[in-house]
């Protein structure tokens, strides 16, 4: 195999895409943070932030190596690049980009996938339990699943992508179905929030939700078009399909809302956008722009119906990770079997374009396997954490609020904001400033 030369355009695009995908996790923090109650917004954002910290370290130490080097049984890689050994050398090249650019890009996927799960357990998880889950699930589920789906090595790579030939361009299976199934498992392990279906649990800030959805949409261009790993036609096609399907999904979701409830809501608009982004992720390289419109409208409509599943089935998936990511990811992935077009970069005809049912079967098998595996491991790991270090807050702590109990903070100072700031007789807290210089020191400093 001849070593390919590094292409500056490709490298620039992948590095920029990595930064775009990174932005999705803070975007998710806003998206989820706005949907919870005032007493939980900081914890919701911290659950995203801590995945950035934990997964980054895991990825460098073993994650990249286990996902993208070597192969054991077509399900997991090896340790040959543990610590990113050898990858900072100039000759470490993957395709037309430095291998480290690929390392950085894929790291961002590994970060956001567990962060997606956190929406299912809003308001009620211990922070230590969540950290333990993120570390365990990423190692036990994300690395092997990403290897199975994305490590291609001429038939000697992962079983889903390389042998089964299921298509998952940017992560419908490896990211969304994977996270959605784990979210369902954790919602069952932790149980329902205190007062679920009795107390109002309205989103505390829809503008934050819109901000988050906007950042997600923006970052998603890196997620999908960056997955081309080169700055060319494939990136352009996936970029356009991403935009088209997402716009269509907004319309799909809002039509369902208008018919069912008489109003098109802001939360529905944001949710429809995310549903469209999720659904087009696996298929953005496999459909035409017209296919993307059909796929998007249907994804928006289906997810709008799917979010009420939790009320019918009685599980508290707080922010609808199952309804949007599991259902949306599954739909988008299966849609390749119908709407796939040989004219698109993935070059596979689906049923509607004269292809057989083979691709549909491959997509179904891939998602079934990933979904079941992720659900089972997440359920077991969640139970183990709950029985050992504790995963569910006590009822008292949950009612008090997870921000205060777990982080000793609250998001908003309503008393201070009342116009009596600095002279509020109701705010009787004592300010204790640690490590502050003594008053005389300050004076001396001012005179110096």
């Amino acid at each position, binding site marked *: 195999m001849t070593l390919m030369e590094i292409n500056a355009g490709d490298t620039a695009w992948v590095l920029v895409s990595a930064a775009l995908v990174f932005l999705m996790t803070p975007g998710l923090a806003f998206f989820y943070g706005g949907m919870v109650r005032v007493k939980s917004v900081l914890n919701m954002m911290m659950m995203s932030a801590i995945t950035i910290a934990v997964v980054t370290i895991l990825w460098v130490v073993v994650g990249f190596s286990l996902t993208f080097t070597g192969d054991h049984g077509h399900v997991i890689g090896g340790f040959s690049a543990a610590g990113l050994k050898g990858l900072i050398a100039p000759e470490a090249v993957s395709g037309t980009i430095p291998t480290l650019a690929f390392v950085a890009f894929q790291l961002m996927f590994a970060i956001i996938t567990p962060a997606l799960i956190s929406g299912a357990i809003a308001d009620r998880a211990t922070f230590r339990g969540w950290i333990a889950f993120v570390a365990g699930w990423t190692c036990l589920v994300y690395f092997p699943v990403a290897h199975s789906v994305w490590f291609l090595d001429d038939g000697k790579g992962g079983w889903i992508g390389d042998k089964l030939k299921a298509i998952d361009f940017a992560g419908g299976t490896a990211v969304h179905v994977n996270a959605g199934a784990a979210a369902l498992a954790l919602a069952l392990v932790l149980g329902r929030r205190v007062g679920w279906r009795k107390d*109002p649990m*309205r989103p505390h800030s829809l503008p934050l939700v819109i901000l988050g959805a906007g950042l997600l949409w923006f970052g998603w261009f890196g997620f999908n078009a960056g997955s081309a790993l080169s700055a060319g036609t494939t990136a352009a096609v996936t970029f356009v399909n991403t935009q088209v399907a997402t716009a269509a999904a907004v319309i799909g979701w809002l039509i369902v809302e208008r018919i069912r*409830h008489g109003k098109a809501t802001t939360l529905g608009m944001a*949710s429809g956008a995310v549903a469209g982004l999720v659904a087009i992720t696996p298929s953005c390289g496999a459909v035409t722009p017209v296919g993307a419109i059909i796929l998007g409208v249907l994804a928006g409509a289906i997810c*709008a119906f799917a*979010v*009420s599943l939790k*009320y019918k089935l009685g599980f508290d998936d707080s922010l*609808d990770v199952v309804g949007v990511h599991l259902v949306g990811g599954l739909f988008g992935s299966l849609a390749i079997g119908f709407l796939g077009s040989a004219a698109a970069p993935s070059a596979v005809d689906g049923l509607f374009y004269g292809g057989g049912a083979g691709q549909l079967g491959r997509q179904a098998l891939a998602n079934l396997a990933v979904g079941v595996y992720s659900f089972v491991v997440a359920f077991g790991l969640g139970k183990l954490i709950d029985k050992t270090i504790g995963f569910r807050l006590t009822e008292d702590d949950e009612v008090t609020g997870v921000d205060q109990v777990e982080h000793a903070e609250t998001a908003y100072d309503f008393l201070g904001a009342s116009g009596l700031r600095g002279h509020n007789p109701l705010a009787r807290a004592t300010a204790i400033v640690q490590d502050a210089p003594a008053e005389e020191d300050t004076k001396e400093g001012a005179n110096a």
Partner: protein
Amino acid sequence: MKLITAVVKPHKLEDVRAALETFGVTGMTVTEASGYGRQKGHTEVYRGAEYEVDLVPKVRLEVVVEDGDGADVVDVIVKAAQTGKIGDGKVWVTPVESIVRVRTGEVDGDAL
């Protein structure tokens, strides 16, 4: 003296204030309030989950006037605040035993 308390729709506050000023009322206290009467509240929908919000926003305004002006002031407020639709609010009158202006110590009629 009479304390006249009115709970009205927020967008009618300016009309009521202007009408009272024309009538000669020189001061009032306004508070943001929320509540419900016969109209009840409204429904909000978040991802298909419907929430009944019982309390609707109102403003509550209070003025103290001489006994003889009470009925007229009520009339002025009602006329200014009326839209004819449900949720226009209520006005009620309560007796006031005494009143003191904090700055000068003047009492009752002089303090208004």
